[in-house]
Protein backbone atom coordinates (compact mmCIF):
# COMPACT_ATOMS: atom_id res chain seq x y z
CA UNK A 1 0.00 0.00 0.00
CA UNK A 2 1.41 3.45 -0.89
CA UNK A 3 2.16 5.94 1.88
CA UNK A 4 -0.27 8.79 1.34
CA UNK A 5 0.55 12.39 2.19
CA UNK A 6 -1.58 15.53 2.00
CA UNK A 7 0.81 18.27 0.82
CA UNK A 8 -0.03 21.96 1.25
CA UNK A 9 0.31 24.21 -1.79
CA UNK A 10 1.49 27.76 -1.17
CA UNK A 11 4.02 29.16 1.27
CA UNK A 12 4.71 25.81 2.98
CA UNK A 13 5.28 23.86 -0.24
CA UNK A 14 8.93 24.73 -0.83
CA UNK A 15 10.24 24.12 2.69
CA UNK A 16 8.19 20.90 2.85
CA UNK A 17 9.66 19.77 -0.48
CA UNK A 18 13.20 20.44 0.70
CA UNK A 19 12.71 18.61 4.00
CA UNK A 20 10.88 15.67 2.45
CA UNK A 21 13.41 15.31 -0.39
CA UNK A 22 16.15 14.93 2.25
CA UNK A 23 14.25 11.95 3.70
CA UNK A 24 13.64 10.20 0.37
CA UNK A 25 10.15 11.41 -0.47
CA UNK A 26 9.91 11.74 -4.29
CA UNK A 27 8.12 15.09 -4.36
CA UNK A 28 9.30 17.49 -7.12
CA UNK A 29 8.92 21.29 -7.54
CA UNK A 30 6.62 20.88 -10.56
CA UNK A 31 4.04 19.07 -8.43
CA UNK A 32 2.77 22.35 -7.08
CA UNK A 33 1.90 23.60 -10.57
CA UNK A 34 0.18 20.40 -11.73
CA UNK A 35 -3.56 20.36 -11.94
CA UNK A 36 -4.04 16.81 -10.63
CA UNK A 37 -5.29 16.57 -7.10
CA UNK A 38 -3.63 13.17 -6.64
CA UNK A 39 -0.11 12.27 -7.76
CA UNK A 40 1.25 8.71 -7.43
CA UNK A 41 4.99 8.09 -7.60
CA UNK A 42 7.33 5.27 -6.44
CA UNK A 43 5.07 3.91 -3.72
CA UNK A 44 3.95 7.34 -2.52
CA UNK A 45 0.64 9.07 -3.03
CA UNK A 46 0.46 12.86 -2.79
CA UNK A 47 -2.79 14.70 -2.28
CA UNK A 48 -2.18 18.33 -3.23
CA UNK A 49 -4.35 20.51 -0.99
CA UNK A 50 -4.98 24.04 0.16
CA UNK A 51 -3.22 24.46 3.52
CA UNK A 52 -6.36 24.82 5.62
CA UNK A 53 -7.87 21.64 4.03
CA UNK A 54 -4.95 19.32 4.81
CA UNK A 55 -6.24 18.42 8.28
CA UNK A 56 -9.72 17.70 6.87
CA UNK A 57 -8.32 15.18 4.37
CA UNK A 58 -6.21 13.54 7.07
CA UNK A 59 -9.04 13.39 9.60
CA UNK A 60 -11.28 11.58 7.13
CA UNK A 61 -8.55 9.15 6.11
CA UNK A 62 -8.12 10.38 2.50
CA UNK A 63 -4.43 10.79 3.38
CA UNK A 64 -2.55 9.00 6.18
CA UNK A 65 -0.22 11.94 6.86
CA UNK A 66 -0.11 15.64 6.06
CA UNK A 67 1.61 18.92 6.83
CA UNK A 68 -0.33 21.72 8.48
CA UNK A 69 0.52 24.95 10.29
CA UNK A 70 0.01 24.92 14.05
CA UNK A 71 -2.18 28.03 13.78
CA UNK A 72 -4.51 26.23 11.33
CA UNK A 73 -4.74 23.21 13.67
CA UNK A 74 -5.67 25.47 16.56
CA UNK A 75 -8.16 27.50 14.52
CA UNK A 76 -9.96 24.42 13.17
CA UNK A 77 -9.50 21.54 15.63
CA UNK A 78 -9.74 18.13 14.02
CA UNK A 79 -9.25 14.60 15.20
CA UNK A 80 -5.68 14.12 13.95
CA UNK A 81 -2.41 13.15 15.65
CA UNK A 82 0.13 15.96 15.77
CA UNK A 83 3.26 13.86 15.70
CA UNK A 84 6.22 16.11 14.91
CA UNK A 85 7.20 19.79 14.86
CA UNK A 86 8.90 20.11 11.47
CA UNK A 87 10.55 23.40 12.41
CA UNK A 88 9.74 24.95 9.04
CA UNK A 89 7.22 27.61 8.08
CA UNK A 90 7.84 29.49 11.31
CA UNK A 91 5.51 32.44 11.81
CA UNK A 92 3.41 34.17 14.44
CA UNK A 93 -0.25 34.84 14.71
CA UNK A 94 -0.15 38.41 15.93
CA UNK A 95 -2.43 41.25 16.98
CA UNK A 96 -1.41 44.40 15.10
CA UNK A 97 -2.64 48.01 15.02
CA UNK A 98 -1.87 51.12 13.01
CA UNK A 99 1.39 52.67 14.21
CA UNK A 100 0.82 55.60 16.57
CA UNK A 101 -2.57 54.49 17.91
CA UNK A 102 -2.79 54.32 21.69
CA UNK A 103 -1.64 50.82 22.60
CA UNK A 104 -4.17 50.30 25.35
CA UNK A 105 -5.87 47.07 24.26
CA UNK A 106 -9.19 47.88 25.92
CA UNK A 107 -9.72 50.69 23.40
CA UNK A 108 -9.87 48.19 20.51
CA UNK A 109 -13.47 47.95 19.28
CA UNK A 110 -13.21 45.79 16.16
CA UNK A 111 -10.63 43.22 15.03
CA UNK A 112 -10.45 41.93 11.44
CA UNK A 113 -9.07 38.39 10.97
CA UNK A 114 -9.08 35.11 9.08
CA UNK A 115 -8.85 33.37 12.48
CA UNK A 116 -12.13 34.14 14.30
CA UNK A 117 -11.89 31.26 16.79
CA UNK A 118 -8.40 32.10 18.02
CA UNK A 119 -9.21 35.81 18.03
CA UNK A 120 -12.34 35.26 20.12
CA UNK A 121 -10.40 33.04 22.53
CA UNK A 122 -7.72 35.71 22.82
CA UNK A 123 -10.32 38.40 23.43
CA UNK A 124 -11.97 36.30 26.14
CA UNK A 125 -8.59 35.56 27.77
CA UNK A 126 -7.45 39.18 27.83
CA UNK A 127 -10.79 40.75 28.64
CA UNK A 128 -11.22 42.52 25.30
CA UNK A 129 -14.80 43.32 24.34
CA UNK A 130 -13.94 43.90 20.67
CA UNK A 131 -16.11 42.56 17.84
CA UNK A 132 -14.48 40.05 15.51
CA UNK A 133 -14.84 40.70 11.79
CA UNK A 134 -14.16 37.66 9.60
CA UNK A 135 -12.32 38.29 6.31
CA UNK A 136 -10.86 36.03 3.63
CA UNK A 137 -7.93 38.05 2.27
CA UNK A 138 -5.70 41.12 2.78
CA UNK A 139 -6.77 41.62 6.34
CA UNK A 140 -4.30 44.54 6.74
CA UNK A 141 -6.48 46.68 4.49
CA UNK A 142 -9.28 46.57 7.08
CA UNK A 143 -7.02 48.37 9.54
CA UNK A 144 -5.49 50.84 7.08
CA UNK A 145 -8.92 51.70 5.62
CA UNK A 146 -10.47 52.10 9.04
CA UNK A 147 -12.88 49.16 8.81
CA UNK A 148 -11.30 47.73 11.96
CA UNK A 149 -8.93 49.23 14.54
CA UNK A 150 -6.77 46.12 14.81
CA UNK A 151 -6.11 42.86 12.99
CA UNK A 152 -5.08 39.34 13.92
CA UNK A 153 -3.04 37.75 11.15
CA UNK A 154 -0.01 35.60 10.36
CA UNK A 155 3.30 37.43 10.43
CA UNK A 156 6.42 35.89 8.89
CA UNK A 157 8.93 38.69 8.32
CA UNK A 158 6.73 41.64 9.24
CA UNK A 159 7.30 43.42 5.91
CA UNK A 160 3.59 43.37 4.92
CA UNK A 161 2.68 44.92 8.25
CA UNK A 162 5.34 47.63 7.92
CA UNK A 163 4.24 48.43 4.35
CA UNK A 164 0.73 49.03 5.70
CA UNK A 165 1.87 51.09 8.68
CA UNK A 166 0.94 48.43 11.24
CA UNK A 167 2.84 47.31 14.35
CA UNK A 168 2.56 44.11 16.35
CA UNK A 169 1.16 44.66 19.84
CA UNK A 170 0.77 41.04 21.00
CA UNK A 171 1.49 37.46 19.91
CA UNK A 172 -1.38 34.93 20.01
CA UNK A 173 0.42 31.84 18.69
CA UNK A 174 4.03 30.96 17.83
CA UNK A 175 3.48 28.65 14.88
CA UNK A 176 5.43 26.20 12.74
CA UNK A 177 4.50 23.37 10.40
CA UNK A 178 3.52 20.05 11.97
CA UNK A 179 3.44 16.53 10.64
CA UNK A 180 -0.10 15.31 11.30
CA UNK A 181 -1.59 11.84 10.92
CA UNK A 182 -4.93 10.10 10.81
CA UNK A 183 -5.29 8.48 14.27
CA UNK A 184 -5.99 5.01 12.91
CA UNK A 185 -3.30 5.20 10.21
CA UNK A 186 -0.84 6.48 12.81
CA UNK A 187 -1.53 3.59 15.15
CA UNK A 188 -1.31 1.01 12.36
CA UNK A 189 1.75 2.52 10.71
CA UNK A 190 3.95 -0.01 8.98
CA UNK A 191 7.71 -0.44 9.39
CA UNK A 192 8.32 1.65 6.23
CA UNK A 193 6.29 4.51 7.66
CA UNK A 194 8.04 4.32 11.03
CA UNK A 195 11.42 4.36 9.31
CA UNK A 196 10.46 7.38 7.23
CA UNK A 197 9.10 9.37 10.20
CA UNK A 198 12.28 8.50 12.13
CA UNK A 199 14.42 9.85 9.21
CA UNK A 200 12.24 12.94 9.22
CA UNK A 201 12.74 13.41 12.98
CA UNK A 202 16.52 13.08 12.59
CA UNK A 203 16.55 15.52 9.66
CA UNK A 204 14.56 18.06 11.68
CA UNK A 205 16.91 17.66 14.68
CA UNK A 206 19.99 18.09 12.45
CA UNK A 207 18.57 21.22 10.85
CA UNK A 208 17.69 22.66 14.24
CA UNK A 209 21.18 21.91 15.60
CA UNK A 210 22.78 23.55 12.53
CA UNK A 211 20.63 26.66 12.92
CA UNK A 212 21.45 26.92 16.64
CA UNK A 213 25.17 26.52 15.90
CA UNK A 214 25.04 29.27 13.28
CA UNK A 215 23.23 31.55 15.72
CA UNK A 216 25.84 30.89 18.41
CA UNK A 217 28.68 31.66 15.99
CA UNK A 218 26.93 34.83 14.92
CA UNK A 219 26.58 35.83 18.57
CA UNK A 220 30.25 35.10 19.21
CA UNK A 221 31.36 36.97 16.06
CA UNK A 222 29.05 39.86 16.90
CA UNK A 223 30.31 39.99 20.49
Amino acid at each position, binding site marked *: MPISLAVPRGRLFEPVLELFAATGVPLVPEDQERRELVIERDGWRFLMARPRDVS*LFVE*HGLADFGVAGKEALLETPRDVV*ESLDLGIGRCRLALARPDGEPTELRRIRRIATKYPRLTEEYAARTGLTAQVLVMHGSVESAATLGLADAIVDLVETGSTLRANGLVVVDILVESSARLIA*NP*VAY*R*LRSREVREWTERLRQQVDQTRAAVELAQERQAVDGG
Partner: protein
Amino acid sequence: MVKCGQRLPQGFEDLGPDRRERVEALGTELATLFASWGYRRVEPPAIENYETFAAGSPSFSADRAYRFLDRDGRLLALRPDITTGVGRMIAQALREDSRAVSLPLRLRYEGIVFRREPQGSARSHAFEQAGVELIGVAGPDADAEVIGLASAAAHLAGLPEVRLLIGHSGLVKGAMQAAGRGSPDVEEQFRAALARRDLVAVSAMIGSDLASVLTGGPFDPVAGREALNRLAGAAEAQIASGARELLALYDLLDEYATPEPWLEPVLLRDLDYYSGVVFELLSPAFPEPLAGGGRYDGLLGKFGAGAPATGFAVNLTATSQAGPGQVLRPRQRVALAWADAAARGQALRIAHRLREQGSVAETLPEAANLTEALAAAASRPVDRLLFVSESGYREIRVCGDQPAGQAGLAGVAGIH
Protein backbone atom coordinates in the same frame (compact mmCIF):
# COMPACT_ATOMS: atom_id res chain seq x y z
CA MET B 1 -35.29 28.98 -1.33
CA VAL B 2 -35.90 25.67 0.40
CA LYS B 3 -37.99 26.06 3.53
CA CYS B 4 -36.40 25.15 6.86
CA GLY B 5 -38.87 22.32 7.40
CA GLN B 6 -37.83 20.72 4.11
CA ARG B 7 -34.21 20.13 5.05
CA LEU B 8 -32.12 18.55 7.81
CA PRO B 9 -30.16 20.46 10.44
CA GLN B 10 -26.34 20.34 10.18
CA GLY B 11 -24.85 17.13 11.46
CA PHE B 12 -27.84 14.86 10.88
CA GLU B 13 -28.49 12.48 8.03
CA ASP B 14 -31.10 10.11 6.68
CA LEU B 15 -30.43 6.41 6.32
CA GLY B 16 -32.21 4.96 3.29
CA PRO B 17 -33.12 1.28 3.14
CA ASP B 18 -29.71 0.15 1.79
CA ARG B 19 -27.69 1.64 4.64
CA ARG B 20 -30.31 0.99 7.31
CA GLU B 21 -30.49 -2.69 6.41
CA ARG B 22 -26.71 -2.97 6.85
CA VAL B 23 -26.98 -1.35 10.30
CA GLU B 24 -29.78 -3.72 11.19
CA ALA B 25 -27.93 -6.76 9.89
CA LEU B 26 -24.78 -6.04 11.91
CA GLY B 27 -26.93 -5.09 14.94
CA THR B 28 -28.74 -8.43 14.73
CA GLU B 29 -25.46 -10.36 14.45
CA LEU B 30 -24.00 -8.49 17.42
CA ALA B 31 -27.12 -8.98 19.55
CA THR B 32 -26.94 -12.73 18.89
CA LEU B 33 -23.22 -12.78 19.70
CA PHE B 34 -23.60 -10.78 22.94
CA ALA B 35 -26.59 -12.88 24.03
CA SER B 36 -24.60 -16.09 23.43
CA TRP B 37 -22.04 -14.87 26.00
CA GLY B 38 -24.83 -14.32 28.54
CA TYR B 39 -25.35 -10.56 28.09
CA ARG B 40 -28.98 -9.41 28.54
CA ARG B 41 -30.54 -6.37 26.92
CA VAL B 42 -31.31 -3.23 28.94
CA GLU B 43 -32.69 0.11 27.81
CA PRO B 44 -31.92 3.28 29.74
CA PRO B 45 -33.84 6.26 28.34
CA ALA B 46 -32.45 8.48 25.55
CA ILE B 47 -32.96 11.59 27.71
CA GLU B 48 -31.60 11.99 31.23
CA ASN B 49 -30.72 14.86 33.56
CA TYR B 50 -27.63 16.59 32.22
CA GLU B 51 -26.09 16.18 35.69
CA THR B 52 -26.03 12.41 35.18
CA PHE B 53 -23.73 12.68 32.15
CA ALA B 54 -21.71 15.49 33.72
CA ALA B 55 -21.09 13.33 36.81
CA GLY B 56 -19.68 10.55 34.66
CA SER B 57 -17.71 12.55 32.10
CA PRO B 58 -17.56 16.27 32.95
CA SER B 59 -15.42 17.64 30.13
CA PHE B 60 -16.80 15.30 27.46
CA SER B 61 -20.40 16.15 28.37
CA ALA B 62 -19.74 19.89 28.50
CA ASP B 63 -18.24 19.75 24.99
CA ARG B 64 -20.41 17.24 23.26
CA ALA B 65 -23.86 16.79 24.87
CA TYR B 66 -27.01 18.27 23.35
CA ARG B 67 -28.66 20.07 26.25
CA PHE B 68 -32.13 21.55 26.66
CA LEU B 69 -34.63 22.57 29.35
CA ASP B 70 -37.77 20.72 30.39
CA ARG B 71 -41.05 22.47 31.29
CA ASP B 72 -39.81 23.30 34.77
CA GLY B 73 -36.50 24.68 33.59
CA ARG B 74 -34.42 21.63 34.56
CA LEU B 75 -31.43 20.93 32.37
CA LEU B 76 -31.76 17.69 30.40
CA ALA B 77 -29.51 16.08 27.78
CA LEU B 78 -29.83 13.67 24.89
CA ARG B 79 -27.50 10.83 25.83
CA PRO B 80 -23.99 11.27 24.39
CA ASP B 81 -23.22 7.70 25.51
CA ILE B 82 -25.18 4.76 26.89
CA THR B 83 -22.74 3.35 29.46
CA THR B 84 -23.45 6.28 31.82
CA GLY B 85 -27.18 5.53 31.70
CA VAL B 86 -26.59 1.83 32.36
CA GLY B 87 -24.29 2.71 35.28
CA ARG B 88 -26.90 5.07 36.74
CA MET B 89 -29.59 2.42 36.29
CA ILE B 90 -27.64 -0.31 38.08
CA ALA B 91 -26.42 1.98 40.87
CA GLN B 92 -30.08 2.91 41.47
CA ALA B 93 -31.06 -0.78 41.68
CA LEU B 94 -28.17 -1.46 44.08
CA ARG B 95 -29.19 1.48 46.27
CA GLU B 96 -32.82 0.38 46.41
CA ASP B 97 -32.11 -3.25 47.31
CA SER B 98 -28.61 -4.54 46.85
CA ARG B 99 -29.68 -8.12 47.72
CA ALA B 100 -32.05 -8.19 44.77
CA VAL B 101 -29.19 -7.55 42.35
CA SER B 102 -26.92 -10.53 41.88
CA LEU B 103 -23.54 -9.40 40.64
CA PRO B 104 -21.88 -9.84 38.25
CA LEU B 105 -24.32 -8.44 35.74
CA ARG B 106 -23.78 -9.01 32.02
CA LEU B 107 -25.77 -6.38 30.14
CA ARG B 108 -26.02 -5.28 26.51
CA TYR B 109 -27.62 -2.30 24.81
CA GLU B 110 -28.31 -0.84 21.40
CA GLY B 111 -29.43 2.67 20.65
CA ILE B 112 -28.73 6.08 19.17
CA VAL B 113 -26.31 8.48 20.89
CA PHE B 114 -26.04 12.21 20.16
CA ARG B 115 -22.74 14.09 20.16
CA ARG B 116 -22.14 17.65 19.04
CA GLU B 117 -19.19 18.06 16.71
CA PRO B 118 -17.11 21.21 16.14
CA GLN B 119 -18.32 23.59 13.48
CA GLY B 120 -17.05 22.64 10.03
CA SER B 121 -16.70 18.96 10.89
CA ALA B 122 -18.47 16.64 8.48
CA ARG B 123 -19.10 14.04 11.15
CA SER B 124 -22.57 12.92 12.02
CA HIS B 125 -23.95 14.14 15.36
CA ALA B 126 -26.01 11.00 15.89
CA PHE B 127 -25.14 7.36 15.44
CA GLU B 128 -26.26 3.97 16.65
CA GLN B 129 -24.17 2.11 19.20
CA ALA B 130 -24.27 -1.51 20.31
CA GLY B 131 -22.29 -2.52 23.36
CA VAL B 132 -21.97 -4.51 26.56
CA GLU B 133 -21.21 -3.86 30.24
CA LEU B 134 -19.80 -6.40 32.68
CA ILE B 135 -20.60 -4.99 36.12
CA GLY B 136 -19.40 -6.27 39.50
CA VAL B 137 -16.10 -7.94 38.59
CA ALA B 138 -12.65 -6.44 38.98
CA GLY B 139 -9.47 -8.03 37.70
CA PRO B 140 -7.90 -9.14 34.45
CA ASP B 141 -10.34 -11.98 33.69
CA ALA B 142 -13.23 -9.55 33.29
CA ASP B 143 -11.08 -7.24 31.14
CA ALA B 144 -10.00 -10.18 28.98
CA GLU B 145 -13.59 -11.41 28.59
CA VAL B 146 -14.75 -8.01 27.37
CA ILE B 147 -11.78 -7.66 25.00
CA GLY B 148 -12.39 -11.20 23.72
CA LEU B 149 -16.03 -10.38 23.05
CA ALA B 150 -15.09 -7.08 21.38
CA SER B 151 -12.66 -8.96 19.12
CA ALA B 152 -15.41 -11.35 18.07
CA ALA B 153 -17.67 -8.33 17.45
CA ALA B 154 -15.02 -6.52 15.36
CA HIS B 155 -14.59 -9.63 13.21
CA LEU B 156 -18.29 -9.55 12.35
CA ALA B 157 -17.67 -6.29 10.45
CA GLY B 158 -15.70 -8.42 8.00
CA LEU B 159 -12.64 -6.13 7.76
CA PRO B 160 -9.07 -7.38 7.25
CA GLU B 161 -6.11 -7.32 9.67
CA VAL B 162 -7.98 -6.31 12.81
CA ARG B 163 -5.50 -5.05 15.38
CA LEU B 164 -5.96 -4.72 19.15
CA LEU B 165 -4.57 -1.60 20.81
CA ILE B 166 -4.40 -1.61 24.55
CA GLY B 167 -3.59 1.02 27.15
CA HIS B 168 -4.31 1.96 30.73
CA SER B 169 -5.68 5.18 32.16
CA GLY B 170 -3.13 4.87 35.01
CA LEU B 171 -0.31 5.40 32.50
CA VAL B 172 -1.98 8.60 31.29
CA LYS B 173 -2.84 9.86 34.80
CA GLY B 174 0.66 9.08 36.08
CA ALA B 175 2.18 10.97 33.14
CA MET B 176 -0.17 13.89 33.86
CA GLN B 177 1.11 14.05 37.44
CA ALA B 178 4.71 13.76 36.29
CA ALA B 179 4.11 16.62 33.85
CA GLY B 180 2.20 18.76 36.36
CA ARG B 181 4.67 18.45 39.28
CA GLY B 182 1.89 19.48 41.64
CA SER B 183 0.31 22.16 39.46
CA PRO B 184 -3.29 21.30 38.51
CA ASP B 185 -3.15 23.87 35.68
CA VAL B 186 -0.18 22.18 34.02
CA GLU B 187 -1.84 18.79 34.54
CA GLU B 188 -4.91 20.10 32.75
CA GLN B 189 -2.77 21.49 29.90
CA PHE B 190 -1.16 18.07 29.55
CA ARG B 191 -4.53 16.31 29.53
CA ALA B 192 -5.83 18.75 26.91
CA ALA B 193 -2.74 18.19 24.74
CA LEU B 194 -3.25 14.43 24.95
CA ALA B 195 -6.94 14.80 24.15
CA ARG B 196 -6.16 16.72 20.97
CA ARG B 197 -3.44 14.15 20.22
CA ASP B 198 -0.75 16.85 20.23
CA LEU B 199 2.32 14.64 20.76
CA VAL B 200 4.61 17.63 20.14
CA ALA B 201 3.28 19.38 23.26
CA VAL B 202 3.10 16.11 25.24
CA SER B 203 6.78 15.33 24.58
CA ALA B 204 7.80 18.85 25.54
CA MET B 205 6.05 18.57 28.93
CA ILE B 206 7.62 15.37 30.26
CA GLY B 207 11.12 13.92 30.59
CA SER B 208 12.57 12.35 27.46
CA ASP B 209 12.63 8.80 28.96
CA LEU B 210 8.92 8.85 29.69
CA ALA B 211 8.22 10.74 26.44
CA SER B 212 9.86 8.07 24.28
CA VAL B 213 7.65 5.36 25.82
CA LEU B 214 4.49 7.45 25.85
CA THR B 215 4.70 8.78 22.31
CA GLY B 216 6.65 5.98 20.61
CA GLY B 217 3.72 3.55 20.51
CA PRO B 218 2.01 1.48 19.56
CA PHE B 219 4.49 -1.26 20.45
CA ASP B 220 4.24 -4.76 19.01
CA PRO B 221 3.53 -7.60 21.47
CA VAL B 222 7.21 -8.22 22.31
CA ALA B 223 8.30 -4.57 22.52
CA GLY B 224 5.09 -3.83 24.45
CA ARG B 225 5.96 -6.35 27.15
CA GLU B 226 9.46 -4.86 27.41
CA ALA B 227 8.04 -1.35 27.73
CA LEU B 228 5.58 -2.54 30.40
CA ASN B 229 8.36 -4.24 32.36
CA ARG B 230 10.24 -0.93 32.36
CA LEU B 231 7.13 1.07 33.31
CA ALA B 232 6.33 -1.39 36.14
CA GLY B 233 9.40 0.03 37.89
CA ALA B 234 8.49 3.68 37.26
CA ALA B 235 8.61 6.18 40.11
CA GLU B 236 5.01 7.29 39.47
CA ALA B 237 2.78 4.88 41.41
CA GLN B 238 -0.11 5.03 38.92
CA ILE B 239 2.18 4.22 35.99
CA ALA B 240 3.77 1.28 37.82
CA SER B 241 0.46 -0.25 38.93
CA GLY B 242 -1.11 0.31 35.50
CA ALA B 243 1.81 -1.44 33.83
CA ARG B 244 1.55 -4.39 36.26
CA GLU B 245 -2.18 -4.73 35.54
CA LEU B 246 -1.49 -4.74 31.81
CA LEU B 247 1.20 -7.41 32.20
CA ALA B 248 -1.29 -9.63 34.07
CA LEU B 249 -3.81 -9.05 31.30
CA TYR B 250 -1.26 -9.86 28.57
CA ASP B 251 -0.91 -13.35 30.07
CA LEU B 252 -4.65 -14.00 29.62
CA LEU B 253 -5.48 -12.50 26.23
CA ASP B 254 -4.30 -15.43 24.17
CA GLU B 255 -6.69 -17.79 25.97
CA TYR B 256 -9.56 -15.36 25.39
CA ALA B 257 -8.80 -15.52 21.65
CA THR B 258 -8.09 -11.83 21.03
CA PRO B 259 -5.70 -10.53 18.36
CA GLU B 260 -2.18 -9.94 19.73
CA PRO B 261 -2.07 -6.85 21.95
CA TRP B 262 -0.24 -3.73 20.74
CA LEU B 263 0.57 -1.39 23.60
CA GLU B 264 -0.53 2.22 23.05
CA PRO B 265 0.48 4.04 26.27
CA VAL B 266 -1.39 7.23 25.38
CA LEU B 267 -4.64 5.54 24.39
CA LEU B 268 -7.08 8.13 25.68
CA ARG B 269 -10.76 7.50 25.03
CA ASP B 270 -13.18 10.42 24.61
CA LEU B 271 -15.08 9.74 27.80
CA ASP B 272 -13.63 10.79 31.14
CA TYR B 273 -14.79 7.90 33.34
CA TYR B 274 -12.22 5.27 32.34
CA SER B 275 -10.19 4.11 35.32
CA GLY B 276 -8.08 1.18 34.14
CA VAL B 277 -7.48 -0.96 31.04
CA VAL B 278 -8.70 0.73 27.83
CA PHE B 279 -8.65 -0.70 24.31
CA GLU B 280 -9.60 -0.17 20.67
CA LEU B 281 -9.87 -2.49 17.67
CA LEU B 282 -8.71 -1.03 14.36
CA SER B 283 -8.47 -2.07 10.73
CA PRO B 284 -6.36 -0.36 8.04
CA ALA B 285 -9.47 -0.51 5.84
CA PHE B 286 -11.42 1.94 7.98
CA PRO B 287 -10.44 5.37 9.41
CA GLU B 288 -12.23 4.92 12.76
CA PRO B 289 -12.00 2.29 15.52
CA LEU B 290 -14.30 -0.68 14.93
CA ALA B 291 -14.88 -1.09 18.66
CA GLY B 292 -13.50 0.44 21.83
CA GLY B 293 -13.97 0.55 25.58
CA GLY B 294 -12.40 -0.22 28.91
CA ARG B 295 -12.73 -0.31 32.68
CA TYR B 296 -14.67 2.34 34.59
CA ASP B 297 -14.61 1.34 38.27
CA GLY B 298 -15.55 4.80 39.55
CA LEU B 299 -18.69 5.47 37.49
CA LEU B 300 -21.35 3.65 39.53
CA GLY B 301 -20.00 5.26 42.72
CA LYS B 302 -20.93 8.67 41.27
CA PHE B 303 -24.54 7.49 41.43
CA GLY B 304 -24.39 6.30 45.03
CA ALA B 305 -23.48 2.61 44.83
CA GLY B 306 -19.99 1.66 43.72
CA ALA B 307 -19.12 -1.46 41.73
CA PRO B 308 -16.23 -2.31 39.39
CA ALA B 309 -17.25 -2.44 35.73
CA THR B 310 -15.91 -2.75 32.21
CA GLY B 311 -17.43 -2.70 28.74
CA PHE B 312 -17.18 -1.58 25.13
CA ALA B 313 -19.26 -0.26 22.25
CA VAL B 314 -19.36 -0.55 18.47
CA ASN B 315 -20.42 2.38 16.29
CA LEU B 316 -23.01 0.41 14.31
CA THR B 317 -23.84 3.18 11.85
CA ALA B 318 -20.24 3.63 10.71
CA THR B 319 -18.89 0.10 11.14
CA SER B 320 -21.76 -1.55 9.29
CA GLN B 321 -20.94 0.53 6.18
CA ALA B 322 -17.25 -0.31 6.32
CA GLY B 323 -16.77 -3.87 5.18
CA PRO B 324 -18.51 -6.22 2.81
CA GLY B 325 -21.20 -6.03 5.48
CA GLN B 326 -23.61 -8.53 6.85
CA VAL B 327 -26.43 -9.16 4.46
CA LEU B 328 -29.79 -9.83 6.03
CA ARG B 329 -30.58 -13.51 5.88
CA PRO B 330 -31.11 -14.11 2.16
CA ARG B 331 -34.73 -14.75 1.49
CA GLN B 332 -36.66 -15.43 -1.63
CA ARG B 333 -38.02 -12.13 -2.87
CA VAL B 334 -41.04 -12.18 -5.17
CA ALA B 335 -43.07 -9.48 -6.89
CA LEU B 336 -46.70 -10.20 -7.71
CA ALA B 337 -48.89 -8.58 -10.37
CA TRP B 338 -52.28 -9.52 -11.71
CA ALA B 339 -53.79 -9.32 -15.18
CA ASP B 340 -57.14 -7.90 -14.07
CA ALA B 341 -59.42 -7.46 -11.07
CA ALA B 342 -60.67 -11.00 -11.37
CA ALA B 343 -57.17 -12.38 -10.67
CA ARG B 344 -56.43 -10.08 -7.72
CA GLY B 345 -57.90 -12.34 -5.03
CA GLN B 346 -55.85 -15.31 -6.24
CA ALA B 347 -52.63 -13.17 -6.40
CA LEU B 348 -53.13 -11.86 -2.85
CA ARG B 349 -53.71 -15.41 -1.56
CA ILE B 350 -50.41 -16.52 -3.14
CA ALA B 351 -48.65 -13.48 -1.60
CA HIS B 352 -50.05 -14.38 1.81
CA ARG B 353 -48.82 -17.98 1.49
CA LEU B 354 -45.35 -16.88 0.37
CA ARG B 355 -45.02 -14.51 3.35
CA GLU B 356 -46.09 -17.27 5.74
CA GLN B 357 -43.32 -19.44 4.29
CA GLY B 358 -40.77 -16.72 5.05
CA SER B 359 -40.41 -15.13 1.61
CA VAL B 360 -40.68 -11.45 0.83
CA ALA B 361 -43.76 -10.84 -1.33
CA GLU B 362 -44.35 -7.39 -2.78
CA THR B 363 -47.42 -6.55 -4.87
CA LEU B 364 -47.49 -4.35 -7.98
CA PRO B 365 -51.12 -3.17 -8.17
CA GLU B 366 -50.16 -0.29 -10.46
CA ALA B 367 -49.00 -2.63 -13.26
CA ALA B 368 -51.81 -2.94 -15.80
CA ASN B 369 -50.25 -5.68 -17.93
CA LEU B 370 -47.28 -8.08 -18.14
CA THR B 371 -44.97 -5.53 -19.82
CA GLU B 372 -45.56 -2.96 -17.10
CA ALA B 373 -45.21 -5.61 -14.40
CA LEU B 374 -41.83 -6.70 -15.82
CA ALA B 375 -40.58 -3.13 -15.97
CA ALA B 376 -41.70 -2.46 -12.39
CA ALA B 377 -40.18 -5.72 -11.10
CA ALA B 378 -36.83 -5.01 -12.77
CA SER B 379 -36.42 -1.85 -10.65
CA ARG B 380 -37.08 -3.62 -7.37
CA PRO B 381 -34.99 -5.92 -5.14
CA VAL B 382 -36.77 -9.12 -6.23
CA ASP B 383 -35.64 -12.39 -7.80
CA ARG B 384 -38.90 -13.38 -9.47
CA LEU B 385 -42.15 -12.01 -10.83
CA LEU B 386 -45.41 -13.93 -10.55
CA PHE B 387 -47.95 -12.68 -13.05
CA VAL B 388 -51.38 -14.03 -12.05
CA SER B 389 -54.35 -14.31 -14.38
CA GLU B 390 -57.63 -16.20 -14.08
CA SER B 391 -56.17 -19.12 -15.99
CA GLY B 392 -53.10 -19.52 -13.72
CA TYR B 393 -49.78 -17.72 -13.30
CA ARG B 394 -46.51 -17.16 -15.11
CA GLU B 395 -43.24 -17.16 -13.17
CA ILE B 396 -40.44 -15.02 -14.62
CA ARG B 397 -36.91 -14.68 -13.26
CA VAL B 398 -35.99 -11.02 -12.84
CA CYS B 399 -32.46 -9.90 -13.61
CA GLY B 400 -32.66 -6.31 -12.51
CA ASP B 401 -29.82 -4.13 -11.25
CA GLN B 402 -30.30 -5.50 -7.78
CA PRO B 403 -28.91 -8.98 -7.26
CA ALA B 404 -30.99 -11.31 -5.14
CA GLY B 405 -30.58 -10.95 -1.42
CA GLN B 406 -28.96 -7.53 -1.66
CA ALA B 407 -31.04 -4.76 -0.31
CA GLY B 408 -32.15 -2.63 -3.21
CA LEU B 409 -34.11 0.51 -3.49
CA ALA B 410 -37.79 0.31 -4.10
CA GLY B 411 -38.30 3.07 -6.58
CA VAL B 412 -36.74 5.85 -4.47
CA ALA B 413 -33.72 6.91 -6.44
CA GLY B 414 -30.89 8.64 -4.68
CA ILE B 415 -31.39 7.34 -1.15
CA HIS B 416 -28.77 4.92 0.13
